[in-house]
């Protein structure tokens, strides 16, 4: 329990840090591009809207502390400002439309990639030294070194453009109505397969090699030898003895690499024009839509922190040493 509280404490600090970073970046930025942006909107927006933009970007004569409290107050009310790209839609509305797409795509493909990678890693470690074991890791190493977005471009070119197996862009067929109906779900799945495949292929090597390497170490432990000597079935030795003891570092690795995977997956969304957070981020960059950009960063940071926390809890549940760890 103490461990849990400590972790919660850490994630609260991390959350505070990302919120504060979000607050400070526009205010510390040299030359203040936001000011130029607001100047562009002068005369086209109602004074109240202009004023709210000013508060958002810290163009005011008030002290930094007052601004910080205003900012926190806005945040507490879910007010992330107004998007310029989708003017006058509030940023929170834009994000809440995008987030289900991203959560489904990135969440599902990360889970698939983690489970598949771990399982293959177990088998490769079990058959270490065979041809299979010496060919698969180098190939996957090559794939893991490829930038996510380039693999996305290639698969889009070969599988969607040349072979016509998959739709070229978007998250669903525009002729269908968004909602829980058959045609929409089918088209959403059709549009999701290729981006998901790209994310799985580029991230699987990490989990696979991590699992293989740790498992090779546990395989030479005495208790594995003992289990074999007792004549236990191979499957049991492989999963209940060797893999079970090797999986913990992989779960820690899941937590560490999550931010990295999410970053890559956002780029995949951009290539596929997938209607998620990554694509919105691109729109924000191209239109100098600072409010949207910052809102997106905050949401992504919170999501990654939450996922990390989840991995921490799983880790603590599986490993008594983590629970008992003192200071």
């Amino acid at each position, binding site marked *: 329990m103490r461990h849990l509280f400590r972790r919660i404490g850490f994630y609260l600090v991390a959350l505070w840090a990302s919120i504060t970073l979000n607050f400070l970046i526009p205010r510390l930025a040299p030359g203040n591009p936001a000011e130029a942006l607001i100047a562009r909107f002068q005369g086209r927006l109602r004074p109240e809207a202009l004023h709210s933009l000013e508060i958002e970007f810290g163009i005011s004569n008030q002290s930094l502390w007052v601004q910080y409290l205003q900012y926190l107050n806005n945040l507490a009310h879910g007010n992330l400002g107004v998007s310029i790209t989708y003017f006058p839609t509030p940023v929170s509305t834009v994000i809440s439309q995008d987030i289900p797409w991203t959560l489904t795509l990135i969440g599902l493909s990360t889970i698939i990639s983690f489970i598949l990678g771990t399982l293959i890693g177990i088998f490769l470690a079990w058959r270490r030294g065979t041809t299979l074991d010496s060919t698969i890791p180098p190939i996957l190493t090559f794939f893991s070194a490829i*930038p996510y977005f380039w693999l996305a471009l290639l698969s889009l070119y070969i599988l969607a453009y040349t072979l016509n197996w998959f739709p070229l862009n978007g998250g669903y067929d525009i002729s269908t109505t968004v909602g829980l109906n058959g045609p929409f779900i089918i088209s959403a799945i059709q549009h999701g397969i290729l981006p998901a495949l790209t994310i799985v292929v580029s991230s699987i090597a*990490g989990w696979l090699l991590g699992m293989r390497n740790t498992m*090779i170490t546990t395989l030479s432990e*005495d208790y594995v030898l003992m289990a074999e000597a007792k004549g236990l079935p191979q499957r049991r030795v492989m999963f209940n003895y060797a893999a079970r003891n090797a999986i913990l570092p992989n779960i820690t690795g899941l937590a560490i690499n999550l931010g990295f995977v999410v970053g890559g997956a956002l780029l995949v969304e951009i290539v596929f024009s997938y209607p998620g957070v990554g694509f919105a981020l691109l729109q924000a960059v191209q239109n100098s839509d600072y409010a949207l950009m910052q809102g997106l960063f905050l949401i992504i940071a919170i999501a990654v922190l939450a996922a990390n926390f989840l991995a921490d809890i799983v880790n603590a549940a599986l490993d008594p040493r983590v629970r008992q760890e003192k200071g």
Partner: protein
Amino acid sequence: MSQLDPLEKPVTAENTNGLPANFYDGVAEPSGTHIIEASANGQAAVNTPISAAGTSIAPVAVGGAPVTAMIAGSLSGFWRAITRNRKVVFGLSIILFFVLVAIFGPMFVHTDPNAFSENLLSPPSASNWLGTTQTGQDVFAQVIYGTRVSIFWGFLTGLLVTILSITIGLCAGYFGGVVDDVLSLLINVFLVLPALPLAIVLAAYFPFKGPLTVAIVITITSWAYGARVLRAQTMSMRRRDFVEAARASGERTLRIIFFEILPNEISVVAAGFVGTVLYVIIFEASLEFIGLGSPTVVSWGSMFYWAQNNDALLLGAWWWFVPPGLCIAVLGAALAFINFGIDEMANPRLRTERRPKVKALKTQKAVA
């Protein structure tokens, strides 16, 4: 607040995930010249100071000379050890090739990579080896010039990231106490924050665009991995005899940190640098692809940007976006191979390929 450290306990030396961000983890403690021999029993060598005698006796009297000699000695030992591994040699030769192209390539290409021509969007031919872009620029010339920019900024940014990691990691590990509490909290927060979105927000606020902006932004968001590893290394070293001796002889703290401790960690730093460069090159290309680089500086990433913005894909112009990506992939694979090779040296159980197959497993189990 070191109790808040999420990564201190569970990460084992074998936990290398292959993802670039994690490159430091695999290198347990390969120090000195005896990496392979000393770790033959599966335990990484207990890192003895590289030349214990030289460090503790000579340092104050003779300025920088022994230190540089020590670093050189350590690096040459490191070099000897890594060149014995086939994966490392393979990776190093590919990198050497790219570095040579970056240095000498543009001398042999007499086409301006930015020059427009009448020859629009033509596929590879004898006159344009890799075809042309929408505005008639020669893709081959762009790739060669782009290699120079991407490699140069990749290594430079890698260096910046490494320097920042060293400074923060060593200070946290050496000072301990409140300094360590604050710095490790900072390290851990930066570890969990998603780097790419943060870098995008930072870069968007920079008043000027270009490779330098990208380098600064990447440095700010990516130093934490290295710092964490070096902090742990330094903590294990701060109570060693040679450090105590230096302290007793009245050396200044900064000198102890950077001239006594750092040279003993140089192999870890070097191994981490390899992973950092790979990570940085992909990161740079990603930021440039989104349009946060300078569109006039030809690099692998800006080639993607123009290809994507001109719908190269829908025009079927594969020769526009395949070459730069292939370069990154091959270079990345080379760096990854080096990293795995280093892993194998740190953890000899991973070295399976040279053993005779079935027999080896049996003997290994019997021994175990």
